[in-house]
């Protein structure tokens, strides 16, 4: 880990208390922080040069009954990345928006709302971003069964076409 990142980590710990640190490589570090400290830590990191929100995403940890929200911050000054992760309840999932820090978060939050069902307080733009006429639970939740949905939504059909015959002709096993 770069010295500057280490110094910044120490500073964050002084301000926000201890948290778990996972070094991914020389220029990338992941920290797991409590939910109520996320905005403070993001604000501090932003002011220290980690000004670019590269990604805001979510992971469904269904067995733990939690969602993990992940913010990836990038510094254009030294090319380093901070991955800030926090766990929220999976039932009635709610978090605060970071639109005021990064306007682009509006779209990331819309996407997470659409695919995981997480509400972001302060972001009033929760219209679906990608899917049309979606009529089931958010599809990136682990309890969504794509196969079952597919079968329900698009019942199987019978084909009369002799697909094997066609394939054998393609392969030259049979003359057309």
């Amino acid at each position, binding site marked *: 880990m770069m010295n500057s990142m280490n110094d910044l980590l120490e500073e964050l710990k002084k301000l926000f208390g201890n948290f778990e640190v996972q070094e991914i490589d020389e220029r990338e570090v992941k920290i797991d922080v409590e939910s109520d400290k996320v905005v403070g830590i993001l604000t501090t990191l932003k002011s220290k040069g980690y000004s670019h929100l590269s990604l805001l995403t979510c992971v469904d940890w269904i067995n733990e009954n939690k969602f993990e929200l992940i913010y990836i911050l990038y510094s254009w000054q030294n090319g380093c990345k901070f991955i800030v992760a926090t766990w929220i309840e999976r039932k009635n999932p709610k978090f605060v928006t970071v639109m005021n820090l990064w306007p682009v978060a509006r779209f990331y939050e819309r996407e997470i709302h659409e695919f995981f069902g997480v509400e972001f307080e302060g972001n009033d733009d929760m219209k679906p971003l990608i899917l049309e006429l979606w009529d089931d639970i958010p599809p990136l939740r682990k309890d969504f069964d*794509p*196969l079952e949905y*597919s*079968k329900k939504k*698009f019942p*199987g*059909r019978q*084909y*009369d*076409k002799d*697909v*094997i015959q*066609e*394939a*054998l*002709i*393609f*392969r030259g*096993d049979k003359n057309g």
Partner: protein
Amino acid sequence: MEKSFFAPVKAWKFLFEKPVTIKVPKEKRKASERYRGFHINDWDKCIGCGTCSKVCPTDAIQMVEVPVLEKKFGEKPQRPSIDYGRCSFCAMCVDICTTGSLQMTREYVHLSSQPEAFIFVPTEKGIKNVENVEIGWIKDEDSELLELERVEMEMIEAEERVKSFIEYVKGYSKEQAIHEAARCVECGICTDRCPEHMDIPEYIKSIWLDDLEEGLRWLYKTNPLSSVCGRVCTHRCEEVCAISNRGEAVAIRWLKRYIVDNVPSEDYMKILNFNPKPKEERIAIVGSGPAGLSAAYFLATMGYKVDIFESLAKPGGVMRYGIPRYRLPDEALDKDIALIQALGVRIFTNTTIGKDIKLEELKEKYDAIFVSTGFTLGRSTGVPGTDHPKVVQALPLLKDIRDYLRGEAPKPEIPETLVVIGGGNVAMDVARSVARLQKMEYGKVNVKLACLERNFEEMPADMEEIIEGKEEGVEFYPGWGPIRIMIEKDEIKGVEFQKCLEVFDSDGKFNPKFDANNKMILQGDMVVEAIGQAPDYSYLPEEIKSKLQFIRGRILTNEYRQTDIPWLFAGGDIVNGPDIIHGVADGYWAARGIDDYLSSKERS
């Protein structure tokens, strides 16, 4: 800024330039390099395992039978058909493909108003019959969905294990077993290969779900010798495992062992809950090896009264007296036999049919007889000197060693230097057993093994036996045939060999050719011949023998292991061979045959 008067005229030059737009549909825009387009499937690589169909999240892939495909082990005669009305082009089918035959192309244009025109069985020419289709999505390390490496089995190191006969394969822990079970794709190609057609994906899934009682029920549906087979099965299943096409086969044998080792034997009867309707008929079984025990188990679960006759002091046949203890401890075998006895099967040991009781007498007391007497006679190379008392046969020696280890016989004479002749698993058993005895007695190993087969691949022994034997200090000399045993003053000094050039002739017949000018001497003060075994039919009266058909020493039966004499069934090495699981299968089919025979007799 003043614009040039001629500026608009400049635009005219574009009249003569090529347009930057593409004339769709006359021209096609090329898809990106890793595009997930229509599929391509190499039929020669594809094994029809159906894993693509199972992983498909949109139910777009169905496996279709291809009648013209050759039926062979390790393959199913079916290929995937893809409904492009359903496909979401996620590429999971490609990422999980066990062989790597399925890939995606950079083709993406297909137009039709007919729904019928959206289903295809992709071939090497994609779905559009085009030679050399450009490939798009190819799986890489990151997208790979299979775990290609097996969970390593812990074994005692060679230096340590050669000091004793302790079982050196430790067995999987729960975490290891569940991890290994998760590698299975449940294609069932293994089941087709297993001579006994065990429900392998089903019991592996039970392990994954951590439901060992269910796993035990699956095992005992087809195999009452699971504790034995979980250790020493020749595991043909693993040779065809779909994962082995690109990685290491699922450790099916060790997973079977994990189930039997982790269910307490006192719970077996409760879990398996046999509830047969008792039948009147009595069946005699001659020989308590794998086939005999298997037949007894299946007959007992059908409600028949079964008696087994065994000429040796303990039941188990080759499992008790042949296979060394470091691979198959007595306790593992006892566990399997105890369950069979608990079903009411009686085992009479020290009772030789043909000597203590005549086969004809047996026929009078029983309604049907199953003979599974095995290959008990050793074969000799017959070279000069083999009549010396210190040139011994493999099976009697292995029996003496096992009896000694059980404390039932005196210590056999342990040679300081030994020459083993033979390249099969029995030769390995002798070499590795004597290596242990030597280590225990003299502190060092001196075993040399020579065989006709010219290299390790040609040798019939399992590769792991050869590798492990080597680790334990056994020296291998493949490609040598014995000429004579060297004897001086009545003492064995060694064996003289000549180079073997070829074991089988062009017709595949055993017809070894030698170079008499290329000779070698291996020193040793004892020689073991382990070049194969033969059946002993002396218990069969002439009158019966004359009615049976023998093919190369084996008894001919129908698929229900029924001989030409309706009440006489046979199985094991004397019918099929060559291993335990084939014996178990013989027992199973014989039990069904005997049941059919007795039921039809009842009716008539």
